[in-house]
């Protein structure tokens, strides 16, 4: 933070290069942010199309459209694409666009590495999706790729493993960049406890990624050697244990869940104060709550495995540790609500998505508490109740926050206002349909419908049909989102620099759209 200015390898200031190579060779955080967001949007529709196949097959009992193997690969790859291809790159895109502008930095700390982190991803997803065209088809053992089932996969197996390796390398390098940018590139006066919460939540998210992605890499490497190099990590005959995989995987997997939601907390903490026209309630408690959630995420993993046959001591430890997470999460929800309390609120689209987030994420949090109760989990485990739970926190949680962020910052990025009417229409269509889609899945799960199954008993028929109808409407509604985004990029009413009357922070002091290089002279933060 000692220096106030930035320079480039050329002596004159320059804009972007021309043509396609601009995007391939770029080291500019705004370009790379845009690339991440576009990749996320594309993957959102690829993963969404797979969800449509799932809901179409489940529209009625009996086998109608796809064979069971393909159905299972749809659920598997839908999850992998949405987690690693849509939500994570979307948040990384937001981080790239926003963190340098929020902390007054000229760019990310390691710009070439930043380009590398992005450009690995299209190759990783090419590898993953190419498995559909190989002998044996795509991965179909669920996104958690448990052995021994996943070891039965055909020729696509090593391609899937390497896709995960590449995506992991991308995440680790991207996260190192985020941490170093935040710790080393802040403008003079931007102390840690003055940083916007989006920056704080990303700092902690990046730490989680650096700590856990290598563990996933280790786990999938063991799968690879178990299949091809005669190792016995997950085979009891050789003294290993398939449950060991689950422990290692979920040591990564649970922090991963918070990787998918902490930046969402940061987004909502930026939007709610703007439209309530009040400063965020309990800023420092938000920071400490985020850190507490991150810490707890490392000691709760086995709540994903309550029915696997753990010692009772383990069940109890992981049950109580999991329930403790409700405390810092409750602090956050309380603070958002208190921020709105007596605020002079308006309800533009970003605020609608943020409020939708708070309500529906909380529903997902409560069903998570139910799942945390080990004895009850024996009833819910691997049922549609779990599916309902994590879609409430990931769709109406993580994805709602990404949409809120898009509507909120798109005018800043493009210089054009989005179409408010269409934005509101998108929100209401999504919110009604997403609840029709996922709420009935709670009932299905409690009644005993297992997840990852292409056919079901007729008693589940009604709610499945309703859920599928909700799914189709939600899917179509997202085309409207893509339309609004493209329309805003192409033109529209000019946005002011501050864009929102109640917006505070360094990024709103820049022109809309911001010039190619910003804060080459670091601002003074008071």
């Amino acid at each position: 933070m000692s220096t106030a200015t930035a320079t480039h390898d050329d002596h004159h200031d320059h804009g972007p290069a021309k043509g396609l190579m601009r995007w391939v060779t770029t080291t500019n955080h705004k370009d790379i942010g845009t690339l991440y967001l576009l990749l996320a949007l594309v993957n959102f529709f690829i993963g969404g199309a797979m969800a449509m196949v799932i809901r179409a097959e489940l529209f009625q009992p009996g086998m109608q459209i796809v064979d069971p193997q393909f159905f299972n690969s749809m659920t598997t790859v839908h999850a992998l694409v949405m987690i690693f291809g849509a939500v994570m790159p979307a948040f990384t895109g937001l981080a790239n666009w926003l963190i340098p502008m929020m902390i007054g930095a000229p760019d990310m700390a390691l710009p070439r590495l930043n380009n590398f982190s992005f450009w690995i991803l299209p190759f990783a997803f090419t590898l993953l999706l190419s498995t559909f065209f190989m002998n044996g088809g795509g991965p179909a053992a669920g996104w958690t790729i448990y052995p021994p089932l996943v070891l039965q996969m055909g020729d696509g197996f090593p391609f899937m493993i390497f896709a995960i390796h590449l995506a992991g390398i991308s995440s680790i390098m991207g996260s190192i960049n985020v941490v170093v940018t935040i710790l080393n590139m802040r403008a003079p006066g931007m102390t840690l406890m003055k940083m916007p919460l989006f920056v704080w939540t990303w700092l902690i998210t990046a730490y989680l990624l650096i700590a856990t992605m290598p563990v996933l890499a280790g786990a999938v490497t063991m799968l690879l050697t178990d299949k091809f190099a005669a190792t016995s990590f997950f085979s009891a005959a050789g003294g290993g244990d398939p449950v060991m995989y689950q422990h290692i995987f979920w040591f990564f997997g649970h922090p991963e869940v918070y990787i998918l939601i902490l930046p969402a907390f940061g987004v909502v903490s930026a939007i709610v104060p703007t439209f309530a026209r009040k400063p965020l309630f309990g800023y420092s408690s938000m920071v400490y709550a985020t850190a507490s959630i991150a810490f707890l995420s490392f000691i709760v993993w086995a709540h994903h495995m309550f029915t696997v046959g753990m010692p009772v001591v383990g069940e109890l430890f992981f049950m109580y540790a999991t329930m403790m997470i409700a405390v810092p999460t409750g602090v956050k929800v309380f603070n958002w609500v208190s921020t709105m309390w007596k605020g002079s609120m308006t309800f533009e689209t970003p605020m609608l998505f943020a409020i939708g987030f708070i309500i529906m994420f909380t529903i997902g949090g409560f069903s998570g508490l139910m799942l945390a109760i080990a004895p009850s989990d024996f009833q819910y485990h691997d049922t549609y109740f779990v599916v309902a739970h994590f879609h409430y926190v990931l769709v109406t949680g993580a994805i709602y926050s990404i949409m809120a962020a898009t509507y909120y910052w798109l005018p800043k990025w493009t210089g054009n206002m989005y179409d408010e009417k269409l934005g509101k229409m998108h929100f209401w269509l999504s919110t009604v349909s997403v609840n029709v889609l996922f709420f009935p899945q709670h009932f299905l799960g409690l009644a005993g419908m297992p997840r990852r199954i292409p056919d079901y008993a007729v008693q589940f028929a009604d709610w499945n049909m309703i859920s599928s109808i909700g799914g189709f409407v939600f899917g179509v509604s997202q085309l409207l989102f893509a339309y609004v985004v493209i329309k805003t990029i192409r033109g529209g009413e000019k946005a002011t620099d501050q864009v929102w009357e109640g917006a505070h922070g360094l990024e709103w002091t820049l022109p809309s759209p911001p010039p190619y290089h910003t804060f080459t002279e670091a601002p003074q933060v008071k």
Partner: protein
Amino acid sequence: MAHTSDHYYVPHGSHWPIVASVALFTGVIGAANWFNGHSAGQMILFLGLALVAFMMFGWFGTVINESLKGAYNEQVDRSFRQGMMWFIFSEVMFFAAFFGALFYARVLSVPWLLGGDLSTHEFLWSSFGENWPTNGPGNVGGDFESMGAWGIPAINTLLLLSSGVTITLSHWALKANDQAKTVLWLAATVALGATFLALQAYEYIHAYHELNLTLGSGIYGSTFFMLTGFHGFHVTIGTVMLIVITLRAAKGHFSPDHHFAFEGVAWYWHFVDVVWLGLFIFVYVL
């Protein structure tokens, strides 16, 4: 050294990252095809690895040139240092996964296979009675002998610990601006690292030929070779990095107060050293 810029250096466009992505993509396609039994896979893998080497020459070369031109100020240097620290942390966590597998097997799953307070193993494999080292109730890979700690592994421990001393002596020499001693102690570190690798290779040959201890020797063989193998791979990377900075030190690239590359490599070397101590204790001795 040219004068150092006051500004944070933001490079403008680079083709090396996309070369790196294509190289990795080529390499893993080759490896995957090789695993699937296609003979072309090996060639594609080596092509990918060659591209990786080409990319590293180019990318690091660019960075070295920029550094020598004085483009990097103190803040850029700090970015590199912090980046390296976090990278090493991620490597620690990669090893943590394999150590976790070792501990899980030794403390939990193998005792469970032996029955513990359950009676299931009486019905499944009542004859299975070995605790550790074991290749499981299936005697996977056939009878084997485990690797002792006090032969080559103990010597290797001494070698790596000494190399930690020599690289520190080199660093002190660098800070005292004594180029000859810097290079000399670096070369000694390289020699110790290379000797370690040679002994490790000899140990592997011994394991395969005389102990019937292979990667396929159940959970003991799996954890033994994966842990020591990944460690050896990291020592190899570290030795290559040491050779590079030895050559750079000989060329006079480093000054007493500006030598991130040296320190980054030294940190990495200490990291592989510490991992080895963990290996020596938990894989060989206990």
